């Protein structure tokens, strides 16, 4: 599907306005730094005994009232970072201040401000949803009527009011995830960490979770640290994003700022199957297609388990252009002239995926 160029403009405009509004609305509070992470590193030992940095020298600030996302592929170090700034892991180097309290030197004060939604489903499987919520509520110092009210509210929010007495073990994956999230916000923390809360969730439930995250910020005025390896959701909900790869922060800013880094080019992706693409064609596209700046060809082997040892290849032609819609007809014509069959076309306006590709030369997901 090709996006309407006007829509592209609208989307960008909307984003700019939202950013402006957010900056404006926040004023003093928006500028206030709630979390300050400085030079955080974590070294682990591999099974073979050698050490490596899962997180290296990460520095960032999270401002009060914003949704800050850590975006990075599997194994980038997102969970390790969250574990350190939530007091689970001791940093090898560096520290984090939460509301001014050091997580290493004054952990109890720092943790009091915090709600954590771990990536893993951290629940007691043989207890009911209500019992799980009650127990963790007590650990946050809630009790009596206040606890009951908080539990009921959360059950309502995660839509499990009618299943509250069922054993968590018998819940579906999505329901467990919702309980997992609910525990993190039970005590209405100022700050909530959510580590890949949408992993393994169907689109409908994912939508609900994202809406919940937005409500936490907009209605409950919470500050959210969100991690994901899915750029669409990060792009949608985040005020600011840190891109993390191999344990290092490689870019940090608003979505708009990050996209500016890649020069705001559209990306046209052509699938060409097993056909080779000549270097000459790439050069022709770059010089003849309107607004095109670069063209690349990449051939990926696809191991096909059904076909046994037979591996098929998928050729992908990627063209960067300042106006993708304008370049498209030219490229199709040029391909036609070189007898290249185009199997599918996708036009992507600049997104975080492109930013990641630009910075690392790899796709965010494979």
């Amino acid at each position, binding site marked *: 599907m090709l996006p309407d160029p006007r829509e592209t403009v609208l989307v960008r405009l909307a984003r700019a306005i939202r950013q402006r509004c957010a900056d404006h609305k926040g004023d003093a509070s928006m500028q206030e730094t709630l979390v300050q992470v400085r030079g955080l590193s974590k070294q682990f030992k591999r099974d073979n005994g050698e050490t490596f940095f899962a997180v290296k020298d990460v520095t960032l600030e999270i401002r009060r009232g914003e949704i800050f996302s850590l975006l990075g592929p599997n194994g980038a170090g997102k969970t390790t970072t969250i*574990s350190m700034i*939530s*007091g*689970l*892991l001791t940093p090898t180097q560096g520290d984090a201040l939460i509301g001014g309290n050091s997580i290493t030197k004054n952990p*109890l*004060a720092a*943790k*009091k401000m*915090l709600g*954590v939604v*771990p990536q*893993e*489903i*951290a*629940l*007691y*499987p*043989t*207890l009911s949803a209500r*019992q799980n919520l009650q*127990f*963790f509520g*007590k*650990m*946050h*110092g809630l009790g009596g009527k206040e606890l009951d009210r908080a539990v009921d509210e959360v059950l309502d929010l995660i839509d499990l009011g009618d299943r509250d007495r069922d054993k968590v073990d018998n819940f579906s994956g999505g329901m467990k995830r919702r309980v997992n999230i609910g*525990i993190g916000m039970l005590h209405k923390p100022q700050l909530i960490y959510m580590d890949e809360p949408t992993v393994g969730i169907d689109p409908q439930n994912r939508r609900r979770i994202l809406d919940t995250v937005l409500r936490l910020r907009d209605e409950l005025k919470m500050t959210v640290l969100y991690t994901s390896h899915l750029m669409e959701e990060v792009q949608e909900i985040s005020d600011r994003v840190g891109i993390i790869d191999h344990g290092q922060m490689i870019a940090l800013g608003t979505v708009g700022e990050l996209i500016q880094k890649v020069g705001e080019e559209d990306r046209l992706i052509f699938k060409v199957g097993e056909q080779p693409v000549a270097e000459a064609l790439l050069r022709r596209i770059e010089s003849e297609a309107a607004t095109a700046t670069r063209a690349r060809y990449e051939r990926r082997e696809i191991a096909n388990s059904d076909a046994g040892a037979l591996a098929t290849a998928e050729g992908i032609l990627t063209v960067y252009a300042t106006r993708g819609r304008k370049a498209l007809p030219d490229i199709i014509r040029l391909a036609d002239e070189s007898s290249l069959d185009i199997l599918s076309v996708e036009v992507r306006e600049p997104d975080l995926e492109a930013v990641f590709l630009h910075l690392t030369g790899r796709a965010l997901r494979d």
Partner: protein
Amino acid sequence: MQRILDIALNDLRIIFKDRSIWINLVILPIVISVAVGYANGAGFTGGGTVSLRVDGFDADASAMSAQFLDAVRAGNANLVLCPMDQTEADLCQLGDEALTAELAQTRLEDKVSLATLEIPSGFGAALARGEAVSVIYRSNEDATAPSYILQAVQSAATRLSGAQIAVQVGGQVADSLSFLQFSDDADRAAFLEEIRGRAAAGWAADLITVETVQAALDPATTQTSGGGFAQSIPGIASMYVMFTVLPAASAFILERKNWTLQRLATLPISRAQILGGKLLARFVMGMIQYAVLFGFGALALGVTFGSQPLTMLPVMIAYTACVTALALALTTFITTDMQAQGITLFMSLTLAPLGGAWWPLEIVPEWMRVIGHVSPIAWAMDAYREIIFYGGGIGDVIVPIAVLLAATAALFAIGVARFRFSK
């Protein structure tokens, strides 16, 4: 403190959610302690009671002899002296008959009584003059009488009149033991002289001197010194406390896998509170285990806990604390649930028999008894036997309790230093 209790209660709730806990907590240990109790000679005391019947002839009937008999009773709470302690329920099984020397002999042969004790006339007067006097102690021909009766008599004798009486009793005991064959009177006299020498030396060292005679006993003759249920109930209970408490290791592994342990570590509570709550839950499980078996032993099997039963409590606490600390320490050396289950079973099934949970350590060779004391069960059993069989008080069990608490501290220190909340 509130958080610690909340964590402990939550863990207990999770433990009891699993209905099969009742099998391990109640059914199996009861079945096993009854079976082991019979194997240790419980049937012998008839009807499952552990009353130890001893026929006594007090020909002296003086204040001194009464004092002596009292001292014997104090030495063992389960001792019933007949006919002096006869009850309406005919605890002595004498019916209306008067106890004669012949009857006493038959009763001994029929194992109605475990031993006879004769205090000669003039006993009190002789003691008063500081002269030697003998108390005659006879046990079954096949020497099946539990050694603790003899010990009760011996300690009474020792307490009452020192080395002199102790030697006399020792001599009589030697006579009553058929396997101690003396070739002639000179041989016997030499034997007695040796006892006298050792007794005097022992008395100077403030020891129960007659024990030198006991050491010469063939282990086979004291086979049944187990005391049936009074041995099996604390033994099997202590083993089951291990079965109940050591799975803490599994639970820790599981909580780490479930990530709930990590979640707890991100909450505004200290690690000490988390560990404290979890260990408290296991400790309580251990104490419940003890309560179940001791309760069953007392109510259904008639086991009594000496003359100072409250002394049981500090022993139970020290032992359960020790096993709890052991569980924590073990947790830090394993990573999978399989390992946890394996090591729990291995530990319980080696430490239990080694420590005298299945049979009394008195029947095993000295070197095994020494090795057995690496097991906390051995120390606990030393204390329980002291309390149950010899009517010991807190002063008599202070050493085992101290050893258990020291081990608790050491294991706890290892555990806390090595414990990790995340893998």
